[in-house]
């Protein structure tokens, strides 16, 4: 009788104070949606920079037009001799064009229009470590017959710094939101406590243990957090699924390779949401009980 009675009372309380329950759940949802957005952003940025790192251990060295075989060879051996260069591969300009066509897939016909191949001959260098990049680029630039050295290190460091930025701002924002949600739940539980003052005082005097008195209220707060977590998971699924579908459409297909799949995001964020949602709920109710219930 006791457990079912408590559960019944809990839901009755949640309904009786439905405005506050609604406010609590809304604040948890807002917190979790923002947390989730940041989580997904960081997850994807990490994914991009991880994936891109491999790409950026390579440097493309474009050669001037009209170099003869010997000149090209000697440039090649000079590059290979540099410290940190693992592999240097000569890429003839016609092959480069073919590769582009392949990469572009069904849009490759767009490249058919060129009468003359506009691409230069090049060496593609693979580094042993990304840290050698600056040194190697500097050295190669000193070699004669080089038109341009292409290396997109800035791109990577920019991505990493954006990710750090988002993490920091997000962390502060989330802490503030968690505090607000906890506060709102704290007040909801206070109302629940007020409506059961008599019962609590009776329980106390007949010798109910403190946790016996507390747990229905902790349960109540946790339920609020849990409901908020489930709603947030639903919203997050719809939003990310929508964004993912747009980004994986033809137009952005190059970005899509690095996007984290919807299912993985869903399962990860659900675990995160339920943990944090229930955590906020329990924290809100425990602080409220400590403050307003002298047991």
């Amino acid at each position: 009788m006791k457990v079912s009675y408590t559960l019944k009372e809990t839901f009755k309380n949640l309904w009786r104070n439905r405005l506050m329950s609604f406010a609590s759940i809304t604040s948890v949802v807002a917190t979790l949606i923002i947390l989730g957005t940041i989580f997904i952003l960081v997850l994807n940025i990490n994914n991009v920079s991880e994936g891109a790192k491999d790409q950026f251990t390579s440097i493309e060295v474009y050669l001037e037009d009209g170099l003869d075989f010997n000149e090209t060879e000697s440039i090649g051996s000079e590059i290979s001799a540099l410290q940190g260069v693992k592999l240097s591969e000569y890429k003839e300009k016609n092959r480069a064009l073919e590769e582009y066509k392949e990469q572009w897939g069904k849009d490759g016909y767009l490249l058919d229009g060129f009468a003359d191949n506009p691409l230069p001959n090049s060496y593609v260098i693979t580094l042993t470590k990304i840290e050698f990049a600056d040194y190697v680029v500097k050295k190669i630039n000193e070699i004669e017959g080089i038109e341009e050295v292409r290396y997109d290190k800035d791109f990577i460091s920019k991505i990493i710094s954006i990710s750090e930025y988002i993490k920091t701002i997000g962390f502060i924002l989330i802490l503030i939101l968690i505090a607000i949600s906890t506060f709102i739940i704290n007040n909801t539980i206070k109302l629940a406590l007020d409506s059961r003052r008599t019962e609590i005082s009776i329980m106390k005097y007949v010798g109910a243990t403190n946790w016996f008195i507390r747990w229905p209220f902790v349960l109540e707060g946790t339920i609020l957090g849990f409901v908020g977590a489930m709603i947030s998971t639903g919203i997050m699924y719809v939003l990310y699924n929508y964004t993912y579908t747009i980004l994986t459409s033809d137009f952005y297909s190059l970005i899509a390779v690095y996007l984290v799949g919807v299912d993985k995001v869903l399962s990860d964020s659900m675990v995160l949401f339920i943990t944090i949602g229930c955590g906020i709920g329990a924290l809100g109710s425990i602080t409220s009980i400590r403050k307003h219930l002298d047991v």
Partner: protein
Amino acid sequence: MIKFNQVSKRYKNGVVGLRDNTISIEKGEFVFLIGSSGAGKTTFVKLILKEIEPSQGRIFLDGDDITKLHRRKIPYVRRKLGIVFQDFRLLPKMTVAENVAYTLEIVGGYSKRKIRSQVSMVLGVVGLLDKSNMKPHQLSGGEKQRVSIARAIINNPKVLIADEPTGNLDPETSWEIMKILRQINRRGTTVVMITHDKEVVDIMKKRVIELNDGKIIRDQMNGGYGYEG
């Protein structure tokens, strides 16, 4: 049963509840605790209930030193005590039987059958067996107080503490309540009753402890309420 050894209580706001009182209430006694408001009666009871801790002195209950207790142990001390309030404190949505059974359900460890037989037993003691399925709002004040007494004694407490149990009742009903308390006392339960009811104290001829300004100024067997009324 209850022993105060040089007990003083000074509240945080500086108000003095009790000053240096030593007293012993033996098992099976019936004690009236009287005195004007603010004399320290409530402080006295709160100390026994472990709602507050004394500033000085030691308190014993049933042979155990309960002066300083971890908050987790307090519920177990309270299970030795039964409490009756002036305002009854019944749960409005529960029936009489459920209100009475509540104590056992909270304490736990009783079978449904045991609970049912205990409830019948104590409702018999207070004469409310025929109203066990009624809700509190269907009862008179005296009946409500009898329900709350039944709830207080169902756990077989060693001490029954009654905080102005007749304060809200007319004289006739008060006597019904006093008869029940006397009956409970005769079965061996120590009864400590706070009261302002001069007539009740004078007729009952029990031990009277009078407090004034935090100090016991009278402790008299077969006493009366005193002159001022």
